């Protein structure tokens, strides 16, 4: 197997150019899919027999929670690649994941609270699922905080990569907390061995919304990673050329 493509992506000018071409596709398709799945989830899907319309927050809450875990895993894997192979673009990708991860985790926690108040009868419970999700938020914030506390970029890369790798242990804990311990939070409806405990007309907007969130994640991550790559090589020859090309309207 050839690793040439992998090494090509490690080159900042190549990454900057290709990410700039890909990002708008991800962004626009995310927008279209969000609108379609919102219509599917809020209009087409039937009410739930037990929660009636309150269940519809699932279309925001569950994809946000999935993406929070996926974003963390992406961040930790790219930080590890950056640490082992000393690839700066990999660190830039990890840096770009962190703010997206914070927003997914916050959306997940806040929509969970809004749903918890009328259904469980409380905004917050010290439940294993909720607490491990809160830890996930702290790992994202810790990663951002640690980076901004270290001035030297190479040392910041290495230190924050170790933190990201340590925190990846929390990812399976979030996922399996509802299986391992008694919890107030319900067990998984979709991500389980059995078939989903949800009829298709409720399920498709959820899966489509998860895809939309994923595309949105790729969009925002690539946009931020491009900016990070530029920032790291500011003043460099290729940056001046790339910016001149962008100003001339050559590359989106």
């Amino acid at each position, binding site marked *: 197997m050839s690793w040439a493509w992998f090494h090509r992506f490690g080159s900042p000018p190549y990454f900057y150019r290709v990410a700039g071409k890909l990002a708008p596709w991800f962004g626009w398709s995310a927008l279209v899919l969000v609108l379609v799945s919102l219509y599917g989830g809020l209009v087409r899907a*039937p*009410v*739930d*027999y*037990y*929660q009636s319309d309150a*269940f519809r927050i*699932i279309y925001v809450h569950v994809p946000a929670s999935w993406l929070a875990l996926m974003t963390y895993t992406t961040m930790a894997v790219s930080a*590890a690649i950056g*640490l*082992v*192979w000393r690839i700066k673009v990999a660190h830039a990708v990890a840096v770009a994941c962190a703010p997206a991860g914070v927003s997914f985790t916050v959306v997940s926690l806040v929509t969970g609270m809004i749903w918890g108040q*009328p*259904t*469980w*009868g*409380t905004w917050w*419970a*010290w*439940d*294993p699922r909720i607490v491990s999700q809160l830890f996930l938020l702290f790992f994202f914030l810790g990663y951002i905080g640690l980076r901004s506390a270290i001035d030297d970029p190479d040392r910041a890369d290495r230190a924050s990569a*170790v933190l990201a*790798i*340590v925190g*990846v*242990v*929390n990812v399976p*804990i979030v996922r399996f907390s509802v299986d391992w*311990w*008694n*919890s*107030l939070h*319900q*067990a*998984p*409806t979709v991500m*389980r061995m*059995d*078939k989903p*405990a*949800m*009829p298709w*007309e*409720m399920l498709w907007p959820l899966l489509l919304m998860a895809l939309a969130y994923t595309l949105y994640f790729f969009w925002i991550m690539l946009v931020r990673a491009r900016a990070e790559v530029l920032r790291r090589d500011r003043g460099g020859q290729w940056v001046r050329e790339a910016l001149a090309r962008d100003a001339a309207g050559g590359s989106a």
Partner: protein
Amino acid sequence: MTPTRRKRLYLVLGILAGVAIAAVLALQAFRSNVMFFFDPTQVAEGEVQEGARFRLGGMVQEGSVQRVSGTLETRFVVTDFKHELNVTYSGVLPDLFKEGQGVVAHGRLNAGGIFVADEVLAKHDEKYMPPEVERSLKRGESRLEPAQGG
């Protein structure tokens, strides 16, 4: 892979393994604290310290809910289909509190073995379905399999 890179890769895997082992040990040690609630079987087997405040979780037994007229007091039975426990609660119940559904009550056992709750939360399960499907499932007419899950 160059030797330095291999060394760094082993270092990363070593950190990961170390943290994973530490997390497993810590979670094992705090197992009872991580549990959000005890079920009636655990209470019957004496896993709960006597007189301690704890959370009791299980299903509200069908036909067990009694409201004391003129007060906010509600009495019901929490069951895990092996053991059951009588619960009394004064206060407003959550909207999703219903017979045959999950519940988590916070309180303590009194001398008479009745669980006196000061907070009752509804525990929702992971199943979602439209009302028509639920009605036909209840009538037993549907050929749809009811979703199984724990």
